[in-house]
């Protein structure tokens, strides 16, 4: 039997296990999934937990329930990958051989990268990128009655780069509903030059931030956090005072990538932008947050990448050339509060623009607020558990970005 191993059972690994179980010739191939964690988190829900919109238990389900029976699930951490010997060593020392490896080991927060940050956790520094983090924030936020709440992005790239914006929009709505918005200052501190990396979206989201009376401090390179003095200190000497700091720490790929010497400075695996094969090993494919491709680290991206990884794993096994079919497509709902949302749809070369989605007549609106976008975001939870993880195609949302319905600036036509 030939062995296909999937390292990681988050969004990408789980989708791949389901797709491969449907498409690999199972008479000659076996599928093994390795992940040391027990729970699968619906990560988009982490945003809603601090505001009491979701109970924390709602975002957590057993990983094993979503991995197909045709695959073997090893619920143990991987210690090391040996790409030359084509085997993975588990924490217990047991070795798993592979013919083809799909790396789906994700990324995680690394507060230890910023002096003073870890010391502030449990005191006045919070995050919402982990189950523990968002749960702690849900406990602390109701007692925050006045002062400076600062949403801080430490370093890019981060998972879901729009989540910090959604947090400030929802915070504005939350404190308004509690009738204490005038007593709470909301500040957004970012290493980027604006609200988003791409100019048209940065402008649209920037004006929304301004409209909501949220202060933005751009181009901020964070040197350290002083949680006793309640200040963020920048490399350029600027200091931002806070009463409650909600931070997105530096995001890094898995430690197993670092230990196996397979990643860049941040442990992201060097991956071909369009075929998603590892740049160093022809029998290793990489999906989702684990890659270094310049696309968003987001669930929608993983979903689109999955079709390319499936196609190219089958091409590799069949000794056919790989298809450069991934275009960097991302599709993200941005919660803006008051029951509204914005949708953005873009890829490596096309930045987010206004328009209608997914069809030329909508019904969703791109880069402008709409009630349907909010319902789209809420409805996505059902789609995630029942369709996306199982590899069932989502109607009207193709892998490659469509230009239909989008309004392009004149020079771009």
């Amino acid at each position, binding site marked *: 039997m030939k062995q296909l191993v999937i390292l990681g059972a988050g969004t990408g690994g789980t989708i791949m296990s389901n797709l491969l179980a449907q498409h690999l010739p199972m008479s000659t191939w076996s599928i093994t999934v390795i992940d040391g964690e027990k729970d699968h988190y619906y990560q988009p829900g982490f945003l809603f937990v601090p505001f009491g919109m979701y109970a924390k238990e709602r975002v957590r389900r057993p990983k094993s329930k979503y991995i197909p029976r045709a695959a073997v699930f090893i619920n143990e951490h991987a210690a090391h990958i040996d790409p030359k010997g084509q085997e993975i060593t588990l924490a217990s020392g047991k070795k798993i051989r592979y013919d083809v490896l799909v790396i789906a080991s994700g990324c995680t927060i690394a507060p230890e990268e910023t002096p003073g940050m870890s010391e502030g956790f449990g005191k006045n520094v919070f995050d919402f990128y982990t189950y523990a983090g968002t749960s702690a924030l849900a406990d602390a936020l109701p007692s925050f009655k006045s002062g400076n709440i600062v949403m801080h992005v430490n*370093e*890019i*790239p981060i998972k879901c*780069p729009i989540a910090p914006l959604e947090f400030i929009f929802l915070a504005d709505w939350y404190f308004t509903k509690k009738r204490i918005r005038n007593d709470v200052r909301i500040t957004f501190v970012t290493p*980027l*030059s604006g609200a*988003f*990396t*791409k100019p048209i979206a940065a402008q649209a989201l920037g004006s929304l931030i301004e409209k909501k009376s949220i202060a933005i401090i751009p*181009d901020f*390179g964070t*040197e350290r956090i002083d949680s006793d003095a309640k200040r963020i200190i*920048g*490399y*350029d000497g600027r200091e931002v005072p806070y009463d409650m700091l909600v931070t997105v720490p530096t995001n890094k790929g898995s430690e197993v990538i670092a230990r196996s010497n397979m990643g860049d*400075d*941040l442990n992201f695996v060097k991956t071909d932008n369009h075929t998603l094969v590892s740049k160093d090993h022809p029998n290793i494919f990489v999906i989702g947050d684990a890659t270094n491709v*310049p*696309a*968003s680290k987001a669930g929608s991206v993983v979903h689109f990448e999955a079709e390319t990884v499936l196609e190219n794993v089958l091409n590799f096994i069949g000794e056919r050339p790989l298809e450069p079919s991934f275009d960097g497509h*991302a599709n993200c709902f941005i919660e803006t509060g008051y029951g509204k949302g914005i949708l953005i749809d*873009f890829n490596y070369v096309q930045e987010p623009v206004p328009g209608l989605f997914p069809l030329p007549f909508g019904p969703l609106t791109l880069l402008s607020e709409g009630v349907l976008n909010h319902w789209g975001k809420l409805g996505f939870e059902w789609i995630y558990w029942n369709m996306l993880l199982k590899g069932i195609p989502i109607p009207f949302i193709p892998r490659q970005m469509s230009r239909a319905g989008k309004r392009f600036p004149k020079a771009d036509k």
Partner: protein
Amino acid sequence: MAAKTIAGRTVDVDSEGFMTDPSQWTREIAQAIANEEGITLTEKHWSVITYMQAEAKKNGEPPTIRAMNKSGVVTTKELYEIFPGGPAKKAAKIAGLKKPAGCV
């Protein structure tokens, strides 16, 4: 793509003024872009520029601030001091390199 005249030479730049053809870069161009950014180039600047160009040639991408900090050429703190207000972008621009991949 647009063309721009810098230090008497016509060079190709993107919409944000980053050069798109590293072979068109000269030290005079670096001086001129630095002047526009309000930066006076010192020995330290030149060592950063040389290092960034070598890395970009090797990897096809300008190095990240994190990589520069590790290199021993310049610390992050020094980078912020000598290229104030967005060091990765400003240094890449002066070195005639493309805009560092702003990860979305």
